[in-house]
């Protein structure tokens, strides 16, 4: 009897121990419970001999950049500022959601913790390089988020794609084609229609 009691007791304590040691279930980060980031930690990589940030270069320092300024300093370096406003807005949304997701999932390399770097490893970033037209696109989508219908914050990936082409293959891969966004904008599609073309099962949310 005593042995049974001991066994039950040990099972109970073991169970408690397991329960305590287990990490708490991670709360899902959604647009409902996660505010838009105020800043982004940008790892600045050393330049190659041509003066351009090297995607394989050493991280020189980590710069804290206000979130909207980061988006404004990325968009003209990822999209062409002369492209259609709806293409720029689609790009602004992709840049924003990409940055938001990575802000929630920072990484550490060589003792430095950061959200993104300033190269095409993440998004091409040049400090204080915002342009009039691209800034307007970023501001136009400021109160909005485009993510999963559940509200879970997901990154929006994109690639260059091909000029004068709808780039269907990018839709199949769930990545927006940058050239494709301009293709559709020139044909009268709105930024939301462009986003819905490349990313399936996503919804537009109002964010505070």
């Amino acid at each position, binding site marked *: 009897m005593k042995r049974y009691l001991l066994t039950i007791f040990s099972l109970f304590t073991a169970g408690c121990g397991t329960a305590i040691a287990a990490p708490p279930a991670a709360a899902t980060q959604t647009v409902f419970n996660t505010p838009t980031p105020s800043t982004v930690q940008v790892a600045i990589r050393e330049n190659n001999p*041509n003066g351009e940030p090297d995607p394989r270069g050493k991280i020189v320092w980590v710069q804290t950049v206000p979130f909207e300024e980061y988006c404004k300093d990325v968009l003209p*370096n*990822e999209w062409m*500022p*002369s492209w259609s406003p709806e293409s720029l807005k689609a790009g602004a949304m992709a840049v924003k959601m990409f940055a938001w997701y990575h802000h929630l999932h920072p990484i550490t390399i060589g003792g430095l913790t950061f959200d993104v770097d300033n190269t095409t490893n993440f998004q091409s970033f040049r400090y204080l390089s915002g*342009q009039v037209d691209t800034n307007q696109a970023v501001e136009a989508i400021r109160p909005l988020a485009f993510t999963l219908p559940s509200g879970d914050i997901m990154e929006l990936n994109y690639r260059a*794609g091909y000029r004068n082409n709808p780039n269907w293959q990018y839709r199949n891969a769930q990545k927006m084609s940058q050239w494709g966004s301009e293709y559709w904008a020139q044909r009268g599609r709105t930024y939301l229609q462009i986003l819905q073309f490349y990313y399936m099962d996503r919804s537009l949310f109002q964010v505070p």
Partner: protein
Amino acid sequence: MPRKSHTLISMVTALFSLCLVCSTPFQAAATSVNPATPQPSSKKSPGSNSGTSPFSPNVVNPSTPAPVGPVESGGGHTPSPYAPWPVGKFRAHVIDGRTLQPLATAEVVIIETEQRLRTDADGYTPWVDVPVLRNPRYRPLVQELHGQLGAIAYKNGYRDSIHLGIRMHEGYHTETTIWMYRIGPGDVRIEPVLYEVPYHHLWLVELADRFRSKDQPGEGAERP
């Protein structure tokens, strides 16, 4: 023989001019200047009617009156002698590279047009019309997605700052930030600071794809 060589030179000139004329790119409809507008040419022969001819170089003699592009109200700039080129609006924002504070009364010179601009209390120059110049050697290969412009900023007590490769788009506003660095007591060899704006990576992707062969594709074609 001289006649033959003259013909050959004319043909080469014509080809080059055609490239320059055709380099009106991409957003030509957005420009306020018609590239086919007749242009004065210092090499125009009597009776020939113009710079629209592919046989006359698309160059304007600055000493001759040039057609003037739209003048920005309040800009107070001298009309560019390069007005027949596609134009875009440009301004510079000059800041102290250490403190990031705006620098007033700095002088910014646009290299291609020699326009001289001065910054206001917020470090901004006025908006001015500038030509959108694409490198003609790339034109037959892949159309460049943006023109390039150079500017030099001067201010007493600061190193000169040269910015090259500023990306320009015809019919659009382009702003660039120029960092200037104060000359300190420990500076014994004082030379200009150079910053080159890199090419837009979308163009680099196109450029690399343009010449990719099938037997040695390298990283392969652009894909999702």
